[in-house]
């Protein structure tokens, strides 16, 4: 089990390691820079320093997790993702400040089509129904084999892979993960649709919609696996590693698509980026704009619908104790 957790944490580190490559060439550590800045000594130095910190923290954590005595294994397993994320945030922030002097303001004219033809979703938007079908199929399977589900089954495991929490064969205990998975998928679907209709027309917008639908599949698959685990006895490592089977190709495809030089960067004003991470522009009607840190889109926090979306996420998360046993 430690090896499985190590794999997951190394994957987390690898994603952070690749973070500088996940943005357009004109963006480095959330700072708009000239396209060839990455190849300059200053650009290369910033990327190297960021990666050095990530690699050091991940390798130290992995060694600590593999070599820790049994009594400390759980604490190490819990601390490691926090340490990786913290190191990532601090290293990112440090390089962001270091490059702030090189910041440029990109501007370009914007165009709007003067046609009243309503916007249509791409054909693959229908695929968003798939995760709900997966969850429903899992629910049906459980319903048909209700008698074969153990009276008491494990739902939580420690770093050694030993079960430390159990649930009973009740409606909440058995179907809870499916309901919660459906809630999360519905929220992702709402975000995907809000992203499509609330952002400027571009190729990146189509890529974002595809990415959101893929993320929905990931959630649907994970929660369906969790739900059928008591019945099929799926090994925990399969449930832990299954998301990576979708995440790795998803990140690679999204990175490739977003970095294609098909169109110029959306020239949002620099002064509207709070801490270079949060976008707040009351004079921009868009609900979603291209991110400066990482892959995809982010909310325009000056738009009141962004707060509605965040509140809905908070409600979904807060509902977990009531839905899952």
């Amino acid at each position, binding site marked *: 089990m430690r090896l499985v957790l190590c794999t997951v944490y190394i994957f987390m580190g690898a994603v952070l390691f690749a973070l500088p490559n996940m943005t357009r060439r004109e963006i480095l550590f959330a700072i708009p820079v000239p396209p060839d800045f990455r190849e300059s000594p200053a650009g290369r130095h910033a990327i190297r320093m960021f990666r050095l910190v990530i690699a050091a923290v991940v390798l130290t954590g992995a060694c600590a997790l593999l070599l820790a005595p049994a009594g400390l294994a759980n604490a190490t397993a819990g601390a490691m993702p926090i340490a990786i994320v913290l190191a990532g945030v601090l290293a990112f922030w440090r390089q962001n400040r270091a490059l702030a002097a090189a910041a440029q303001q990109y*501007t*370009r*004219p*914007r*165009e*709007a*089509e*003067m*046609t*009243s*033809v309503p*916007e249509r979703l791409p054909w693959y938007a229908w695929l968003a129904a798939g995760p709900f079908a997966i969850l429903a199929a899992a629910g049906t399977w459980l319903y048909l084999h209700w008698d074969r589900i153990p009276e008491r089954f494990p739902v939580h495991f420690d770093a050694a892979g030993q079960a430390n929490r159990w649930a009973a064969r009740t409606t909440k205990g058995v179907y809870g993960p499916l309901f919660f998975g459906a809630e999360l998928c519905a929220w992702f679907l709402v975000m995907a649709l809000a992203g499509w209709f*609330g*952002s*400027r*027309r571009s190729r990146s917008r189509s890529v974002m919609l595809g990415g959101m639908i893929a993320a929905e599949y990931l959630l649907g698959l994970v929660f369906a696996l969790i739900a059928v685990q008591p019945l099929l006895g799926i090994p925990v490592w399969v449930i832990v590693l299954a998301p990576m089977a979708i995440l790795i190709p998803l990140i690679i495809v999204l990175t490739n698509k977003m970095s294609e030089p098909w169109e110029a960067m*959306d*020239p*949002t*004003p620099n002064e509207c980026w709070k801490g270079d991470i949060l976008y707040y522009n*009351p*004079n*921009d*009607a*868009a*609900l979603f704009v291209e991110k400066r840190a990482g892959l995809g889109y982010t909310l325009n926090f000056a738009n009141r619908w962004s707060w509605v979306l965040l509140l809905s996420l908070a409600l979904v998360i807060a509902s977990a104790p009531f839905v899952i046993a």
Partner: protein
Amino acid sequence: MLVPNSSRRRIVSGPHTRAPRRKRKASRERADLPAVCKFHLTKCILYMYTRRVMAQSPRIRIDPASGIPAVRQIVDSLRVLLVEGQLVPGATLPSVRRVAVELGVHFNTVAEAYRQLAAEGWLNLKHGRGAVVVPRVAPAVTNGARNDDLRNRLRGLVAQLRAEGISVDSIADELRAMAKVVKRS
């Protein structure tokens, strides 16, 4: 402000004007291509088709760096489309929300532009129906007053362009070319 639609149509209309025989030959050649090339070719054709469809619909453009207020840029761009007949009476303009999102401006900016054009008699704004282009009769102005106004506006524009560093020759060439277009219409 206005995107030259005609030039884009010229670029993308090439494959559509080919003779049928050449088309057949091209499809035979396509069949011999490896799968990767076919995929990229399909992508290219889809891209060209999208460009063609998009080129058919009139567009407005604003430049946030120009220093000209966004409302004025939207009004001016739309007026060009209306005067040139690219937006004909009966056409419905897109919603304020959609235009505002595309141009990266506030809803009120676009709403104000629509209101100004409605006040000029170009649009009919009805709640729930959006902005509809209506037939407009140009107001009667005496020749003397019109010429004075025209001269003053052109002088202002030329002065502004010269202040921006555009050469006198370029301005004169553009004005001559525009005069030809105006005479033709």
